């Protein structure tokens, strides 16, 4: 049997072919890996350019890209490549009809067989296999290795080149890097008064900052005011960043309340100087930016809110004068409620000055303050006075309570209170005899019953009045329904409405009376007197039983209770007194309260500058104020009257003598639409009908006449002594007229303003910000 033939020739062919195949595979693998590597390089270049990756990381990725190509080649080339498979490639390419691959296969088979793995084939087959191997060896010379393993362009070559080109282009491009530095842009708002919170807007404000684990309190640097709990920062406050207010040359630190990547909230120091400055922001020692900022006066109306209320300087002065008067009266009459009210109004004015409050808010706050002041006021305090007076009349009949009674009669409740306290003290000190106690008891009982009776009478009277009104209303309703014509019906309706209003007022007054502090105090006073009387009442003694210490102690106890009752009565008397004083003062200051309300109502909103000033009112006011201070005014600013013009549209207007205006024209169908622009009037003109008459006055030593004095003051100022006297006379009259005449509030306001401005001791007026 023939031995297996040496196939080394074929093996050599296979070796050569394998090398070529592996080389081709390596090229293919490297090309495919180049696509991935180029993509990776592209990504790393982009990442480094946009600072998403550190440069070191980028370089590492680039190196990895190169290694990826090598790895791809190695992996591709390292694939398993069987000899038989390679031989088959050669067979195919060389058209050898599988001679080489069959030779390799048979060679292996025969080699295994030679190794003693069993004879699977008979002799002929064996020989044929050997012959096949030989045939293969013979045909090796015809093998075309190049054709079997041609080198070709890798199929991913285009993609790889494309990616490489793209990477090269990207590498050459100047990609704008992201700006990660910290920047500040603006302060919001860009102006504020001291103590305000400001937001500085920016980006990347945490860049370059060390990050403490927790928020730290603000550093108390030199110059930074010490802060209380109310001003403690509420957000994150970095330890290595700061904000300064001022200029580059000179600045002071400000408190940082919160620091975030996009904004910094700071608080302007309360003592920051006014004016244009800058907020300088530092992270560690690097100044990252600065923004313009203006520290403004809180009272500067230019920076007030648009809807903030704006009071004229003389309005402000007028209101301040009213408030000062209210406070004086409050302190004098000991009415703390009025003082509180004045303080509330002062706070409102302060807010208005800072532009923190709108007109609606101002009026609303004023209304609330007034309501608080008038809360539980008695609608008819005179009834209370009468009731106490009647009680006093009864008490005056008794010697022990004579002083008390007289004080009540005179409505001197302060003294009444003291008398009650004295009585209580006497009881405590056991200065009253049994008889005196009994007399006191009887009198107190009597008075309390009398007061109770009066209350009942008043209630009955109230009910009768109400019933009467209701009956009247019913009757008027019937009459209205029975009215024969419209005129009657309207008349009935009008009367009916009047009665209904009257009933409502009656009921409202009764309701207010029930809630009034005074009435309740009087009721408690009445109860205290009753209890005192009960406690002073001596118990009935058993004639068969002797009095003992226990009874005495009991009596002492009762006396003490009676004393306490009297003290309570004294306290209630004090309350009545306080409330009466308050109401009296309020009534006294009613006119001032009206003025105050009117002044507030006349306040304008900041944006509304009001109508134009065609008559140079403000100029004239300034001139007037200047002369009032004793200075000279501007010539021509203040004249008694000016020539006015009036035009009628085919209307007829006749000016009166003494000249308010003159107009003339034919009578027409329509009324005139023109008007006299000069509302202050013209100077009086003389007419031809006047008759000059020379009057001789008596020379006296009493100085000039009133008229002369006034005129002189108008020209030269109000500092003269004569003027003071004239003013005092006029002021009394003005007060009387204002109280008695039914003038509208706005008219009263102007009159009072006028007299306030011509006051002889007028304080220096507020500075006009426009000067």
């Amino acid at each position, binding site marked *: 049997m023939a031995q297996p033939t040496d196939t080394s020739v074929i093996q050599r062919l296979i070796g050569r072919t394998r090398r070529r195949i592996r080389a081709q595979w390596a090229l293919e693998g490297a090309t495919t890996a180049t696509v991935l590597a180029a993509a990776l390089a592209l990504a790393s270049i982009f990442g480094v350019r946009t600072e998403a990756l550190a440069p070191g990381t980028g370089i590492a990725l680039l190196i990895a890209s190169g290694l990826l190509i090598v790895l791809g080649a190695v992996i591709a080339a390292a694939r398993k490549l069987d000899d038989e498979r390679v031989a088959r490639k050669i067979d195919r390419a060389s058209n050898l*009809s*599988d001679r080489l691959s069959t030779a390799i296969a048979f060679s292996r088979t025969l080699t295994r067989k030679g190794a003693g793995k069993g004879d699977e084939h008979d002799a002929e087959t064996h020989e044929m296999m050997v012959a096949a191997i030989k045939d293969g060896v013979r045909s090796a010379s015809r093998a075309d290795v190049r054709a079997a393993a041609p080198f070709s362009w890798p199929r991913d070559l285009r993609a790889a080149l494309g990616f490489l080109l793209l990477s090269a282009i990207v590498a050459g491009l100047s990609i704008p890097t992201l700006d990660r530095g910290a920047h500040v842009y603006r302060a919001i708002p860009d102006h504020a008064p001291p103590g305000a919170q400001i937001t500085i807007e920016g980006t990347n404000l945490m860049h370059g900052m060390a990050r403490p684990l927790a928020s730290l309190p603000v550093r108390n640097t030199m110059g930074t005011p010490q802060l209380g709990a109310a001003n403690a920062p509420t957000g994150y406050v970095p330890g290595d960043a700061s904000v300064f207010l001022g200029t580059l040359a000179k600045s002071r630190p400000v408190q940082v309340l919160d620091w975030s990547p996009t904004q910094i909230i700071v608080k302007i120091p309360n003592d920051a100087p006014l004016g244009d400055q800058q907020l300088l922001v530092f992270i560690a020692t690097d100044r990252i930016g600065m923004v313009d900022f203006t520290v403004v006066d809180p009272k500067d109306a230019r920076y007030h809110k648009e809807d903030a209320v704006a009071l004229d300087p003389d309005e402000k002065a007028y209101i301040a004068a009213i408030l000062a008067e209210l406070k004086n009266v409050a302190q004098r009459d000991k009415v703390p409620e009025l003082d509180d009210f004045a303080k509330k109004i002062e706070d409102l004015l302060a807010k208005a000055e800072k532009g923190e409050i709108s007109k609606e808010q101002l009026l609303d706050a004023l209304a609330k303050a007034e309501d608080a002041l008038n809360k539980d006021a008695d609608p008819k305090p005179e009834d209370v006075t009468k009731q106490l007076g009647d009680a006093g009349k009864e008490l005056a009949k008794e010697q022990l309570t004579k002083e008390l009674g007289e004080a009540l009669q005179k409505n001197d409740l302060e003294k009444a209170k003291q008398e009650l306290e004295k009585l209580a003290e006497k009881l405590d000190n056991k200065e009253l005899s049994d008889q005196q106690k009994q007399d006191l008891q009887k009198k107190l009982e009597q008075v309390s019953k009398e007061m109770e009776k009066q209350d009942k009478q008043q209630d009955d009277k109230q009910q009768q009045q109400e019933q009467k009104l209701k009956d009247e209303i019913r009757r008027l309703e019937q009459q209205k329904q029975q009215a024969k014509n419209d005129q009657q019906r309207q008349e009935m309706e009008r009367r009916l409405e009047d009665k209904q209003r009257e009933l409502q007022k009656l009921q409202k007054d009764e309701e207010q009376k029930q809630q009034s502090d005074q009435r309740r105090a009087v009721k408690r006073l009445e109860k205290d007197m009753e209890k005192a009387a009960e406690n002073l009442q001596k118990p009935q003694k058993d004639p068969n039983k002797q009095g003992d210490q226990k009874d005495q102690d009991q009596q002492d106890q009762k006396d003490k209770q009676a004393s306490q009752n009297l003290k309570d009565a004294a306290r209630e008397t004090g309350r009545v007194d306080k409330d009466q004083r308050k109401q009296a003062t309020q009534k006294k200051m009613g006119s001032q309260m009206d003025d105050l309300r009117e002044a507030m109502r006349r306040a304008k909103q900041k944006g509304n500058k009001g109508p134009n000033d065609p008559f140079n009112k403000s100029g004239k006011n300034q001139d007037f104020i200047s002369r009032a201070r004793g200075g000279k005014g501007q010539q021509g600013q203040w004249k008694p009257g000016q020539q006015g013009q009036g035009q009628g549209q085919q209307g007829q207007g006749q000016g009166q003598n003494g000249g308010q205006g003159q107009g003339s024209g034919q009578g027409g169908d329509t009324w005139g639409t023109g008007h006299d622009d000069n509302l202050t009037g013209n100077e009086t003109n003389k007419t031809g009908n006047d008759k000059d008459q020379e009057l001789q006055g008596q020379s006296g030593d009493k100085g000039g006449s009133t008229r002369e004095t006034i005129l002189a003051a108008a020209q030269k100022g109000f500092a003269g002594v004569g003027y003071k006297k004239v003013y005092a006379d006029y002021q009394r009259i003005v007060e009387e007229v204002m109280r008695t005449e039914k003038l509208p509030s706005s008219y009263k306001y102007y009159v009072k303003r006028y007299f306030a401005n011509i006051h002889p001791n007028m304080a220096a007026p507020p500075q006009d910000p426009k000067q």
Partner: protein
Amino acid sequence: MSTATAANIESTVSGFTTDLRALREEIGTMIVGQEDIVEGVLMCLLGGGHALLEGVPGLGKTMLVRTLAETIHANFSRIQFTPDLMPADIVGTNVIVEDQGGKRFEFSRGPIFANIVLADEINRATPKTQSALLEAMSEGSVTVAKQTYKLEKPFFVLATQNPLEMEGTYPLPEAQLDRFFFKLVVEYPNKENLHTILDRTTADHVPQPRAVIGKERIMEMRELVRKVPLARQIQDYAVRVVLATHPENPEATAKSKQFMRYGASPRGLQAVILAAKIRALLEGRYAVSIDDIRHVAPPALRHRMILNFEGEAEGVQADAIIEEILKATKEA
């Protein structure tokens, strides 16, 4: 071949190649063109199988078989299948013979008892008659009245079918078709071949085939064929090709999955391998190559692949599916 040596083998193979080529050439003197058919028929003969020819009448099928029989100096018989043909007409029957001893039954052999049998238009006979032939083809013997009569080897049947006249015929069932080694489709000769045919057959001199080899040589050649070795990879290739004809197989191609009902049987794979070995020897090689497999797969598998209704409705040819399978099946 009892003592084989390398030199012997080479000469043996060389002798095989020479004889086979001589046989082919000799047949070629009588049959114009149809080289594939001749080669196929010879492969069937040497493979120990039988051939099924399909073609229109007048293409020389009978001439081919007769020539083949004469070139191998074998007995030839022709059976014309008709619907009234009985099995006894094929295999023979017992007849009463009268002689000195009296009357006795004597088996009269039918036309099947020949080396080369041409079963013409086999699809015209009844299935019973067909089965009588097919049984003899598979068994190599005939049983009549419980008496078995061996058929002389080589026994080669070449059956024909006329694709034109299918009406009133009895198409061979698939199980019977599977017994044929090859199914060869005889194409109509081209113009040049027709001229040659005319020149040869209408002249005064009609060529006569001569014997090239004997029946014993055929048997030897058959034995040698089975000695041809086959590399494992190549055998694996053949197996994957046959498996791909089965639609349920993962290696089946798209057409196979779409149009096939049943794929080729293992008998078909045997035919492929044997035929590939013959072809290798024909080309003077000592081992089978993948090209041999590709070459012999169509005639060996086309009649063993059963199309589904869609395939039949679409008029899909098995050859197209086989072609797709051969292209799709990887060599390794």
